[in-house]
């Protein structure tokens, strides 16, 4: 495709096409979109973050990432659709326009690029990073168990061959460390949204402890609003609540760390499957999934914008 208008958002793309898409979007929208390389993956791929900004310096910001578990393809695909939606709707949708006139949005579409490349070329079922584990034949760490929040506790595995292996130490994976360093250096994130699939949930901290977060009531009611908006489009039903109370105990998770950094509106999505496809969601469901998810994202972003802290 020569531009992002003719790009096929209803298809799964290999990593080179996604990286080309990002560069096209930046080239087409020089006044709003820029690309920041926040680090390198273990195999040396750039960790690209798209910054959507209408000006100002170090404005309060919203982070969205997709694809931290590489086999969850509908998330990276939705990320590309979100990027195009933002540049299309700015100036047209009053809610998004108001948000972007005061806040920045950062979007990392391929958060685990080595894993994503591996799912296209070697093993479609790959979930983790690709860094070798010394002393083991098994490669990779679960990037959603590698964060410094209850690291190594229950709900993560110490076995390198496990799909939930937490790694040798917190932030051992460059894909995680790069985000940690970026969030710390930016210092003004107000919302952090990490997107997974496929069990249709909207979750807030904590995963590593049953101690409720201090903002539990607000996060719970905002989650309810977000998933109600989401369901309004195609009737897709979501569950919502804290990670530990809704699914299971999981330590070393992304949004437990971001919440502990003071980023109040920290959420994890689990997108579709409404049927029996699991990770192999048919591409015909990419755009409807992205559309409905966007409604929930807008609810969270709008609330963040209207409730500065």
């Amino acid at each position, binding site marked *: 495709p020569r531009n992002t208008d003719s790009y096929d958002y209803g*298809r799964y793309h290999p990593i080179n096409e996604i990286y080309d898409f990002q560069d096209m979007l930046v080239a087409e929208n020089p006044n709003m979109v820029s690309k920041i390389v926040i680090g390198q993956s273990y195999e040396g791929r750039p960790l690209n973050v798209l910054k959507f900004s209408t000006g100002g310096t170090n404005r309060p910001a919203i982070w969205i990432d997709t694809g931290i578990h590489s086999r969850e393809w509908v998330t990276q695909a939705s990320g590309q659709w979100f990027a195009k939606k933002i540049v299309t709707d700015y100036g047209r949708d009053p809610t998004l326009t108001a948000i972007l006139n005061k806040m920045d949005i950062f979007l990392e579409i391929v958060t685990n690029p080595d894993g994503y490349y591996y799912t296209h070329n070697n093993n479609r079922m790959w979930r983790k990073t690709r860094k070798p584990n010394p002393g083991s034949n098994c490669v990779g760490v679960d990037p959603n168990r590698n964060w410094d929040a209850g690291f190594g506790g229950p709900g993560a595995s110490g076995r390198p061959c496990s*799909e939930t292996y937490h790694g040798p130490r917190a932030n051992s994976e460059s894909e995680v460390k790069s985000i940690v360093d970026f969030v710390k250096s930016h210092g003004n994130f107000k919302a952090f949204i990490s997107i997974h699939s496929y069990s249709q949930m909207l979750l807030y901290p904590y995963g590593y402890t049953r101690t409720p977060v201090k903002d539990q009531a607000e996060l719970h009611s905002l989650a309810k609003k977000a998933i109600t908006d989401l369901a309004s489009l195609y009737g897709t039903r979501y569950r919502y609540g804290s990670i530990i109370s809704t699914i*299971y105990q999981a330590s070393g998770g992304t949004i437990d760390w971001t919440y502990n950094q003071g980023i109040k509106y920290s959420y994890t999505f689990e997108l579709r499957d409404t049927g029996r496809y*699991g990770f192999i969601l048919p591409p015909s469901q990419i755009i409807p999934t992205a559309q409905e998810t966007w409604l929930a994202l807008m609810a969270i972003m709008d609330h963040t914008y209207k409730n500065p802290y």
Partner: protein
Amino acid sequence: KETFEGHQVLRIVPKDDVQLSLIKDLEDMIEFELDFWRGVTDAVTPVDIRVPFHSLQTVKIYLETQGIEYSTMIEDLQTMLDDEQEEMESAARVTQ
């Protein structure tokens, strides 16, 4: 390239906490090389497990002897992946 001929994904709906813990025990049976697509949460929420061909019979016997109901969510994962690959390639051809 890793392939998954004969791998099935079973959808298990635990009835109660006893069944939940029996399914959770499966996670520790490393020799089965199970891949939990959707983990154990609470009773009535499905658990989806990819089971390699070499473990299929044993896992199904385990579930049946424990009276745990399951259905086959994906009959043959590799067939589904081949379809996905073919669809990607044809869509790419259309784009080009």
